[in-house]
């Protein structure tokens, strides 16, 4: 199994293309131990994508793999995170993953 990969996601991260994003993520998680996701700043994001990424995080975590974003969430992605309420009660891991915020002891 190869070590790491960077996946540049398609700018349409909505339900209409979510199956393609799903396949991409599943293949990456099957084939690599470390995956970085590049999300275009102009990407159109809806809740189905957030849901998919959360499920992928769970899977990566269970398999001891690393899944991360190349850049902290911004643009539409950040707006979707805020609108969905995902960040309201976010854990440190959530904030680290989505916003690249590190925990201060």
């Amino acid at each position: 199994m190869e070590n790491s990969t960077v996946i540049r996601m398609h700018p349409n991260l909505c339900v209409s293309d979510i199956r393609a994003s799903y396949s991409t993520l599943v293949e990456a998680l099957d084939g690599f131990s470390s995956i970085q996701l590049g999300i275009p700043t102009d990407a159109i994001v809806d809740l189905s994508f957030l849901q998919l990424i959360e499920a992928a995080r769970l899977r990566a975590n269970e398999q001891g793999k690393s899944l991360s974003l190349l850049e902290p969430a911004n643009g539409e992605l950040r707006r979707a995170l805020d609108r969905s309420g995902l960040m309201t009660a976010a854990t440190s891991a959530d904030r680290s993953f989505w916003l690249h915020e590190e925990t201060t002891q």
Partner: protein
Amino acid sequence: MSNPDPADIFRIEAAELLEQMEQGLLDLEHRLDDRTLVDAVFRALHTLKGSGAMFGFDRLAAFTHHCETAFDRVRKGQAEATPALVSAVLEARDHMRALVEDPSGDHAAEERYLLERLQAAVSGAVAAPMASVADAPAKTATPTAPTTWRIRFGLPENTFVNGTNPLSFLDELRAMGECRVVLDRSTLPPLEQLDPTALYLAWDVTLTTDRSRADIEDVFLFVMDDMALEIEAPSDGAPLPEVAPPVLSDIDAPARAAAAEPPPERPEPEAAARPVADAADPKLRRKVESVRVPAERLDELMDRVGELVIVQSRLQQIAATSSDIGLRTVSEEMERLCSELRVTMMVLRMVPVATLFDRYRRLVHDLQRDTGKKIELSTDGESTEMDKTVIERLADPLVHLVRNAADHGLENGEARRAAGKPEAGSIRLSARQTGGEVIISVTDDGRGIDRARVRAKAEAAGLIQPGATIADQDLLQLIFQPGFSTASSVTNLSGRGVGMDVVKKAIESLHGSIDLASRPGEGSTVSLRIPLTLAIIDGLLVRVGEGRYVIPLPAVEECIELSQEEDLRSRGRAFLSLRDTLVPFIRLRELFATGTRPDPYQKMVVVSTGEERVGLIVDQIIGHHQTVIKSMSKLHDDVTTFSGATILGDGSVALILDVANLVSLGQEQEAQLRAIA
């Protein structure tokens, strides 16, 4: 199998919404103060707009928004539902359908016209100040002191596919006041079990607002029926938590165990504050009761079942000549399974006639406007089921019949009053099943068919000789002749003489028949006899000469043996006394000119269409046969004795007898013989 195009999914959804909208509007027309109907129409408009925007039908969304706004005002008591508003939205609904079907077309002029109509209707529908205060629902009345609500909700899994954006609900809640939204990810399945187009998330919202519970419920108005929603005020039960619980434990924690702080603890759920996760638990969600399947897939499945039935028939023949017990057993089991599969397939294709009848409510609404006549449409037997293909092909003929009833059949109000009838004319659509047929009738209580006018028209057209004696039923049947019309003026509804013959052809193409009854001054009834299905039927396989033929089993009343003595006695006439009733019969061997000698033990198969019976003399009854109907070629359009063909187990072809035609032939024969006698 490829995934369906989301736009196509939307089109199916939109068609259903438009249908709901139309039915709601038509009901509302009669019950203008029915709040449930107003809500139903609003929900359909709201969903159509939201889904349209989500799937890129922006023009539809923008146009629908105007109608939604109009209905929102009615919901809020700021305007009244009026016939003009209902009528305007009905027209707008037709335009919405056009925008769904052809989103890039040039609709500008039509839109301007419709929006002007809508505007005029809305202006006229503004509720009087007194009425608006008195009638406005409590929820829009005086604002109350702010209350903190706890709202927990989970949406159905098909939310995304239906084009609903859950984030819009959250936005609406935020717009109501101070709002804290927490996403619940606890019901998210493992990635490998996740359907990425399904929604698994739920929400826990704390909202401080002066709006009422009803206002909050309104946010979810158009998904309310399928979702899990709990709205609690502090007085309802448990105190609101200071901090909403984090709903997903630190999922990356194990991987970061060394550096991580202790993950936040998930509080124990309180009895009075059941986590929305429970409500959104797939096990607790409403069971999926139906699955949407494209019609063409059903057709494909039907074709496969048809081919399987033919192969099974072939296997049965091989097994019948084999001494292999195992082969025979398998063949019998296969026959049983095929028969069950066929029945299951038939049931899958059956849809209630209500889906057909509902379409005519709108037609009658428009006919009232166009003719200036008051018309009441009533329906009966809507739960009768028919094959979906048959239903689709009946739609146009019924349009002609309903139009004819409204235009020619029903008198205007003045004439009706003069005749002592209620001012509103009645058109009744009814359906009932008899054996393998469904009889659909269109009945009006109008003036009835003017025989003298029919005769005059027929004579002028050369269809009958002047002064010729003609039976009443035959005279009435003349209206189904091409180009025949008794209307003295051509209207845009009917009277062009193209309707009734088209109806007849359409019904005949369904292997059906038309009966017409009419009483002067009392009205007319057109009855369509239609086979339940066009795909596979139970047939009785018979031999005539060297050929084999199928008689549709539902039409078969009984089979009796025709002894040589009876055969000889009946020479020169074509009647047989059957339990003191004379039944005309047809020697198929002679009709088909087989040129073969009759079998010493011929059989008579008595078939009927309703009241009328005829005996068909055959050489041998072979037995029951599951018959996959194959259409005959266009070359055989004028061969009325057969309604189709089927492939037998040995690969040979058997023709399917058209019972209605044969019964009619038998009756003609009887009439001729009676006339001679």
